[in-house]
């Protein structure tokens, strides 16, 4: 992470969002909004006094509701950049106009309540989409797991935050309800994945492996613990993956092939009822903690960013690659590439591989000083163009511009407007040729004359 910030060729803009993209391969123009942090990062030392003294305690999004942060905060101790920002929604200064503690205690004078969003404009030749994933919202779909009513039913990502040494519990696995150490942990796989009725049709690809890892961590970290895993299949297609799964099995993880039909409270514990389809018997397991391997879905807002950049999404909302086998890092929009889980569920090795692949595609493009354009684009016959610009109204690529030409009519110079095609923007769809009543526009490679000749020949 630090490497990405320190690289002299990388300009990092955090807390920023892409507002608008225009242009085309080799020449995109991008408007970026850098949201106000209310902390001047050029003078902030990241000492941490402000967030220690801030009186407002907020549920930490980063810790998925399992920890507390302040209104002026960094997401986690190793955040990059390691300097705070103020959450305007919750900060007392912004909500009530009183407080100002962080500004008072800041020795560097970095807190600036008047900071504004900054709009930046950059020109780039290529764009890489790497917007990642979000977890499937299981609470809305799985009533049998309690719709999120049981605090001790958590997701795999919440488990990760707990077992992470810099997480809310400093690496200790606990029951969120009472903070006790869980002894019996039940894992349920395919929550939302491979479930057409309640979730997604696809396999999320990573859950078999991270569940094996979680089970291993429970057995390793908690003495006398037991791990039960309800599964449909165990899929371990990756280098050293099957070995890892076997290791977890040998450590004593209990794999039960079958679905869970109900989780209910039983005293201070949870009862997990399911089926063991290999033995053909119903089973009930008493659990202190239940961890769900929830499906991966496209990141929130990814449909909107796809629309802004101008490429398509697939039926599940992931970014559509140009070809599933031959062009997995490209979109159908020239100059826009894909990396990671935004294209479909992926684990870290696959993500890194695809990201490096996308980087090579970008490098190949940027290594050229000039690009050859497709000559099959529209052209204007200026002598019959009436300048009505009906073509401009129908062009989906904003490729038609107005142009002023001067002609000699009856010995006098006359200025008039005609349509002009921007060859970088024109994608050769031909909409304009149909809108043009005088017939001044024609599409090279698919001219009116050619198409009529084809119709004549094929109807013969």
């Amino acid at each position, binding site marked *: 992470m630090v490497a990405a910030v320190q690289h002299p060729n990388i300009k990092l803009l955090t807390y920023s969002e892409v507002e608008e993209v225009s242009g085309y391969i080799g020449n995109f123009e991008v408007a970026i909004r850098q949201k106000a942090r209310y902390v001047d990062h050029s003078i902030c030392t990241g000492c941490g006094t402000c967030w220690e003294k801030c009186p407002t305690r907020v549920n930490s999004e980063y810790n998925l509701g399992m920890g507390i942060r302040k209104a002026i905060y960094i997401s986690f101790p190793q955040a990059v950049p390691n300097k705070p920002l103020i959450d305007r929604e919750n900060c007392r200064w912004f909500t009530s106009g009183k407080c100002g503690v962080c500004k008072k205690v800041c020795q560097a004078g970095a807190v600036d309540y008047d900071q504004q969003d900054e709009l930046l404009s950059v020109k780039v030749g290529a764009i*890489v989409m*790497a917007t990642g994933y979000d977890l499937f919202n299981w609470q809305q779909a799985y009533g049998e797991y309690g719709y999120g009513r049981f605090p001790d039913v958590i997701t795999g990502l919440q488990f990760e935050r707990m077992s992470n040494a810099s997480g809310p519990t400093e690496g200790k696995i606990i029951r969120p309800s009472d903070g006790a150490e869980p002894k019996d942990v039940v894992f349920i796989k395919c929550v939302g994945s491979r479930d057409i009725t309640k979730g997604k049709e696809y396999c999320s690809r990573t859950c078999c492996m991270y569940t094996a890892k979680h089970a291993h961590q429970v057995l390793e970290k908690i003495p006398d613990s037991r791990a039960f895993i309800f599964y449909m299949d165990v899929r371990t297609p990756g280098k050293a*993956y099957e070995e890892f799964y076997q290791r977890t099995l040998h450590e004593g993880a209990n794999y039960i092939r079958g679905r869970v039909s109900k989780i209910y409270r039983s005293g201070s514990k949870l009862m997990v009822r399911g089926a063991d389809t290999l033995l053909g018997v119903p089973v009930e397991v008493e659990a202190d903690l239940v961890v769900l391997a929830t499906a991966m879905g496209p990141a929130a807002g990814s449909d909107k960013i796809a629309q802004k950049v101008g490429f398509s999404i697939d039926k599940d909302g992931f970014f559509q690659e140009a070809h599933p086998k031959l062009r997995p890092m490209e979109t159908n929009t020239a100059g826009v590439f894909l990396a990671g889980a935004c294209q479909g569920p992926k684990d870290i090795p696959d993500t890194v591989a695809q990201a490096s692949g996308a980087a090579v595609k*970008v490098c190949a493009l940027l290594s050229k000083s000039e690009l050859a354009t497709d000559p099959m684009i529209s052209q204007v016959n200026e002598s019959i163009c009436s300048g009505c610009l009906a073509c401009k109204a129908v062009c989906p690529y904003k490729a038609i511009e107005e142009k002023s030409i001067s002609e000699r009519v009856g010995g006098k110079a006359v200025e008039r407007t005609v349509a002009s095609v921007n060859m970088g923007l024109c994608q050769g769809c031909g909409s304009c040729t149909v809108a043009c009543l005088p017939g001044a526009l024609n599409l090279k490679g698919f001219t009116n004359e050619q198409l009529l000749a084809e119709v004549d020949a094929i109807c013969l």
Partner: protein
Amino acid sequence: MKRTGVFICWCGSNIGGVVDIPAALEEVSKFPGVAYATDYKYMCSEPGQEKIINAIKEHKLDRVVVSACSPRLHENTFRKAIQRAGLNPYMLEIANIREHCSWVHQNDKEKATLKAIDLIRRAVAKAGKIEPLYESSISVKKRVLVIGGGIAGMQAALDVAEAGYEVVLVEREGTVGGKMAMLDKTFPTLDCSA
């Protein structure tokens, strides 16, 4: 006078097993503007391309119809081939007699043959109206925008930056790292994710 060359591909038995190519060839040779017509087992192969190049030179062809698989597959291959023979690469038209004919009409060879002839007639008619086209060029801004600062975005950014190009890495949260930085140890090697 236009001099069109027609080259019908058998694609092994993919086309030749359904369409009666000798019969089609005879019909096609009579189309107006067709100066030369021939067939070959695999037109996209090196010898197939050589056949086209030699015919262009020998018969002074000024445009070419290749009657084979979908233009989405080999249009570029054949454009390059006729360019090697000195023609403008866009003096080419493809008749799709595999995906749009032999593969979808395997059970009716007679109708498939008639349809193939129609499809070639269309291509020859269009070829009669084509003109040389010339590519032009646009400049390339040597900078990339990476949207998303998780592992995918950081890896792509670092690789491109290492190659010497400028990168703008945009992350909507206050920190880079994305989901990956939230994780504890990662499988299968159990190393940390920071």
